[in-house]
């Protein structure tokens, strides 16, 4: 508890004792002999003890032109109750209001703390190597490119490259992935991860401002400024609700007594009930709190959601489109067969290795790995990449073509298409077809479970876009039982294919795209929600996507969806609950069936319940983290 809260608690206890005594004395008849002003004084004492700050703020805010705030409403309601002679109620309303405020402030403080604990991945210091030994300094002050030492168990303060030492690195805080990664000289390490048993010397490659942990923290913090539509609705609602209810209260207090000659005090009492429930706090606090909690829970799994709006989009997902390579498949290509049409297998493989010698494409790497020797790159004169088709190069002064059927067809080369469900690289040299390389890429472990869980979480259609050959793409589609497979797409075709799927998406539902975020940025941006996977340490992907999954584990997708669904469910529950209770109390109050005590529950009680419900967004039930078993 903060000092302010303790002070408030002390006041509440004192006021409760005073008020309790007064009420007991009155019931025993001990106060009957007192004059009205003496009795008033007896109740004013506890009232002012808890209510003075409220009255003062109400007056101050009116002077500043901020009329409709809770202070004003509570002040008016309680003063009006005093005026009609309901002394105990007036003091009790203020007392309960303060109890509620205190409770609310504790609840907010608690959820703030649990959220900050969640984001407690910021490193506190760095061990900088200086001529006089190690200096423990603020990570912000470490210059770019300097040498730092990470001792066992310490948090890595800045992104960098390991120069010396070996260790296992725990990335769980960032990725939610329990299996540690190995760090050895030459490998990159990422800030925010925790070092294992070994000591590492690291040369920093980024300043603190651009380092992964800072970017992640900023992302999560800024996320709540991208508001979901439902939050906008609440803000607009709050703006109108209070003035309207206040106006109604005024009418209720004045019209029946004036027009029909009813009893003033009864109708003023009813108006007070209106004033007490006219604060929209329950909604205004609990809705952003729910979203913040949802974003926090997701980040604990290594899922960064860049805005509350994306949680809402995720909860309405009807279509999910995947990129094939590296997303549904492992992205680790292996040469599975060499089928020469002319010459030997070794000759064919060597040609291919030469042609792919300069390429960084995973397929190129798999061919070079299979060749196993260093290709004599001096034999390669020029290399030209033809997007989506392959490579065209000059080797030993003769033209070498490596790529798809399309490439060979376009050059008028006679060949026999191979009948395989895999990625094929055709080789033509000096105008003659030489053979084909068969390259396979396995489907990621757990992909089918993840897709099944996605369907269970409400996704109706799962599709795949691929630049790969149709048979290869369709083989993956069949294995994973995808609803739609679009293959042989050039990068620009992917956007067009996605747009036609967007058109087919039902109204009020959304489409998501999952890719690696590197070569499919335009598609990521075009989708309602773009999800990048395997992005730890990749700034481009973090930039382009709306939801970033730090590792490449497909089971994180259903988790993200379940968190989104749960958050939105809680938001809707809170809105429905708060509105229902408030409207019910308004109606009962107008009819004369509600009393002040009920009204106070309608204000602070509802707020507290809504906050407690919202805090469930932060908790992950066991069900949310594990893929559900296959029964049912």
């Amino acid at each position, binding site marked *: 508890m903060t000092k*302010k809260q303790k002070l408030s608690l002390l006041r509440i206890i004192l006021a409760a004792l005073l008020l309790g005594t007064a009420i007991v004395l009155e019931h025993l008849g001990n106060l009957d002999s007192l004059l009205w002003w003496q009795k008033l004084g007896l109740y004013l004492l506890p009232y002012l003890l808890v209510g003075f700050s409220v009255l003062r*703020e109400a007056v*101050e*805010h009116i002077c*500043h*032109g*901020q009329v409709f*705030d*809770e202070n004003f409403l509570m002040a008016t309601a309680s003063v009006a109750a005093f005026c009609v002679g309901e002394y105990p109620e007036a003091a009790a309303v203020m007392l309960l209001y303060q109890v509620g405020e205190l409770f609310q*402030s504790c609840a*907010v403080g608690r*959820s*703030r703390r649990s*959220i*900050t604990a969640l984001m407690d991945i910021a490193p506190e210091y760095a061990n900088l190597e200086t001529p006089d030994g190690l200096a423990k300094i603020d990570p912000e002050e470490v210059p770019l490119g300097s040498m730092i030492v990470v001792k066992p168990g310490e948090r890595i303060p800045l992104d960098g490259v390991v120069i010396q030492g070996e260790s296992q690195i725990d990335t769980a805080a960032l990725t939610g992935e329990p299996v540690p990664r190995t760090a050895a000289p030459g490998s990159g390490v990422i800030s925010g991860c925790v070092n294992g048993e070994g000591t590492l010397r690291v040369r920093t490659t980024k300043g603190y401002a651009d380092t992964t942990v800072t970017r992640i923290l900023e992302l999560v*913090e*800024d996320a*709540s*400024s991208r508001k979901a539509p439902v939050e906008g609705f609440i*803000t607009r609602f*709050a703006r109108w609700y209070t003035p309207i209810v206040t106006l109604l209260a005024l009418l209720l207090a004045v019209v029946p007594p004036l027009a029909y000659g009813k009893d003033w005090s009864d109708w003023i009492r009813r108006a007070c009930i209106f004033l007490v429930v006219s*604060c*929209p*706090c329950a909604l*205004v*606090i609990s809705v*952003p*709190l729910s979203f*913040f909690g949802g974003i926090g829970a997701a980040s604990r799994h290594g899922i960064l959601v860049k805005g509350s709006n994306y949680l809402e989009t995720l909860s309405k997902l009807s279509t999910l489109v995947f990129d094939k390579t590296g997303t549904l498949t492992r992205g680790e290509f292996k040469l599975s067969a060499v089928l020469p049409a002319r010459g030997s297998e070794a000759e064919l493989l060597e040609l291919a290795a030469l042609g792919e010698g300069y390429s960084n494409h995973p397929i190129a790497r798999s061919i070079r790995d299979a060749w196993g020797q260093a290709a004599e790159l001096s034999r390669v004169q020029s290399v030209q990449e033809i997007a989506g088709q392959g490579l065209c190069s000059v080797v030993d002064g003769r033209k070498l073509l490596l790529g798809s059927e399309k490439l060979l067809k376009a050059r008028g080369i006679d060949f026999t298409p191979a009948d395989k469900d895999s990625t094929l690289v055709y080789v033509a040299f000096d105008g003659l077809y030489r053979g084909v390389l068969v390259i396979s890429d396995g489907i990621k472990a757990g992909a089918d479970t993840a897709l099944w869980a996605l369907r269970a979480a409400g996704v109706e259609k799962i599709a795949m876009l691929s630049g790969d050959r149709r048979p290869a793409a369709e083989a993956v589609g069949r294995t994973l039982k995808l609803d739609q497979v679009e293959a042989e797409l050039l990068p620009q075709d992917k956007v067009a294919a996605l747009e036609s799927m967007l058109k087919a998406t039902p109204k009020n539902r959304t489409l998501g795209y999952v890719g690696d975020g590197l070569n499919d940025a335009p598609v990521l941006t075009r989708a309602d929600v773009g999800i990048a996977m395997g992005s730890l340490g990749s700034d481009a992907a973090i930039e382009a996507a709306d939801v970033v999954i730090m590792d490449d584990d497909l089971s994180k997708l259903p988790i993200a969806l379940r968190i989104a669904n749960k958050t939105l469910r809680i938001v809707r529950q809170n809105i429905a609950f708060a509105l229902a209770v408030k409207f019910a109390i308004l109606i009962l109050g107008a009819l004369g069936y509600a009393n002040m005590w009920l009204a106070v529950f309608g204000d602070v009680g509802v707020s507290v319940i809504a906050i407690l419900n919202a805090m469930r967004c932060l908790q992950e039930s066991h069900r949310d983290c594990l893929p559900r078993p296959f029964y049912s």
Partner: protein
Amino acid sequence: MKKKFQMENLDCANCAAKMETLIQNIPGVRSASMNFMTQKLTLEADDDRFEEILEEAQRCCDKVDRGCRILRP
């Protein structure tokens, strides 16, 4: 210039929303967002008048909730 400030005693979500609206309406402010959960104000405003705008922002906060302060780094 865009800067982030820690807030002190930001106790009610409704107040945070009101402060945000008031600050957004200060001339020279390009964007302002008041994060109730992290108690942080992100202010983007003209460089040459930044200090002035920040003081005006503090006055806006005073109007809504006395005791709520923008902490200067």
